[in-house]
């Protein structure tokens, strides 16, 4: 069982983000980190390969400036190798452009299954994965909260409005996993050390045969403006006390909810 996991490397989410005033693209200064949302996919893949008794996990990422620190985190968790697509031409890519690049990168390796998160922390379009599936001609199951391989087929519990559906699909396929799907492991010291020597192939847009088809220049979207949203009026904030409960009850009465 060979599994490709798409892992996005993003600016540290604990740092307040900002927009470039000229391009309105997210400012991506500083070291990138592995998007937390993707650690669930990496863990899921490692467990599925284990259960299958063989095969390997390949991480696929598109990121500026040959950034690999996020990929290394995934390698330290146990993935075997990485594929990075990095090219100045890719700045300002929209979801479809990203999907074209990732689909082409995935095609350079052998896989039975592609795993992604349901949405990234910084972009959260949630459309990239299924666009990849369409471009690769694969079936897809989004919003998986449980994933198994049974008799060579994918078996997924997929979230729905009302609960969940049990969905099956032949392989190869693409699945997007939610944060509840598995508990990601922390990389061990040994894992971190061995990650340093695991292979990461770097590809350019030209290597993938996509010159002139992807990146900001070919993205169909334009930013028109950015403005501050209407701020909410600051409210009353009080410390807990018996009087506080009385005041809260008074507030609820005034809203006529009691």
């Amino acid at each position, binding site marked *: 069982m060979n599994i490709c996991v798409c892992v996005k490397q993003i600016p540290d989410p604990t740092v307040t983000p900002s927009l470039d005033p000229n391009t309105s693209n997210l400012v991506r200064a500083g070291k990138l980190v592995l998007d937390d949302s993707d650690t669930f996919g990496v863990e899921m893949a490692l467990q599925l390969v284990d259960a299958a008794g063989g095969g390997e996990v390949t991480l696929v990422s598109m990121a500026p400036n040959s950034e690999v620190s996020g990929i290394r985190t995934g390698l330290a968790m146990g993935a075997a190798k990485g594929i990075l697509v990095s090219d100045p031409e890719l700045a300002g890519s*929209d979801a479809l452009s990203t999907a074209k690049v990732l689909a082409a990168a995935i095609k350079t390796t052998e896989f039975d299954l592609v795993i992604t998160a349901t949405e990234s922390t910084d972009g959260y379009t949630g459309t990239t994965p299924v666009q990849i599936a*369409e471009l690769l001609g694969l*079936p897809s199951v989004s919003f998986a*909260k449980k994933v198994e391989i049974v008799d060579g087929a994918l078996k997924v519990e997929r979230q*729905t409005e009302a609960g969940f559906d049990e969905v099956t699909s032949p392989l190869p396929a693409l699945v997007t996993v939610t944060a509840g799907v598995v508990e990601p492991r922390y990389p061990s010291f040994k894992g971190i050390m061995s990650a340093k020597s695991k292979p990461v192939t770097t590809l350019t847009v030209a290597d993938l045969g996509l010159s002139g088809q992807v990146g900001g220049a070919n993205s169909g979207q*334009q*930013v028109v403006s950015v403005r501050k*949203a209407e701020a909410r009026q600051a409210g009353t*904030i009080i*410390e807990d006390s018996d009087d506080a409960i009385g005041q809260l009850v008074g507030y609820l009465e005034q809203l006529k909810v009691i």
Partner: protein
Amino acid sequence: MSLGKIWVLAEFADAKPTTATLELLTAANTFADKVEAFAWGEGVVNYAGVLGDYGVSKLYDIGSLAGSLPGPKVAAAMAEAISSDSAPDAIFFATSYDGRDSAARLSARLSVGVITNVVNLVANGSELNAEHAIFGGEMILTSKFAAAAPQIFVIRAKSFAPEAKEAANCEVVSASVSDLGSTDGAKIVSSHVEERSGPKLDEAPVVVSGGRGLGQPDRYQLVEELASLLNGAPGASRAIVDAGWVPYSYQVGQTGKTVKPNLYIAVGISGATQHMVGMKGSKNIVAINKDKEAPIFQVCDFGIVGDASKIVPKLIEAIKAR
């Protein structure tokens, strides 16, 4: 009217259009002369009546999906209708599981982009400018398509208020879907409903949500009790959904439900940006959190700094004692 024709993916649950569908149709009516819909299901012809009330003049019946997940077939039906008929100026999908999948498949098939997480649309000639809340709703980013119709938008729930139109006659046509081969391989084997009582989370006038600050799973009962005293619905942050305290259908936020109740009470919730985008539109917000620096206090109208496990029982008693 600035646009000629808009298509809407109409989703139904228990033979009724979802609220998000009615919101999309209402928005489509304000921008286009002609609104047409696509729907799947066993008896799509029966949907024509209610869709007609919302201004739909033509309904493409994708038919029963026979267990397939909707995305591939919806996208194929739309792509085929575009090539055999005429393309719409814009296509609206809801930010739902199937809406997102369908929009993504269609975008890749047509090789046109898609704008997601839309919370408002503004017409500018035949273009629609889409507003998208970023940084937890602090900033509004407006974007548009550079070229090439159709403009595909995935629109978040509660972005428009649903409003029926004068009833129109809705013609039903069958949407042909050719054999999709491997992309249509995923099949639903069985469906499971997680029961919940009381008003629906996204429609309730009062929502009481609990987060990790409740400390332990059984304290969620306090949230449920308070919600029921206020005739509201209980909700949750993702932290306690992931931890398995409550089912996913309780989640409020970016990946969960968008709620805009008259009153939202956040108990032990920090107010992460992804939670805020789902509840910041509430009319009145109450927060209970022991950390006075918690971001949730920046958006609340009334906040108490303290231990939720003490405050909520006292509040319940005080309400009962009235």
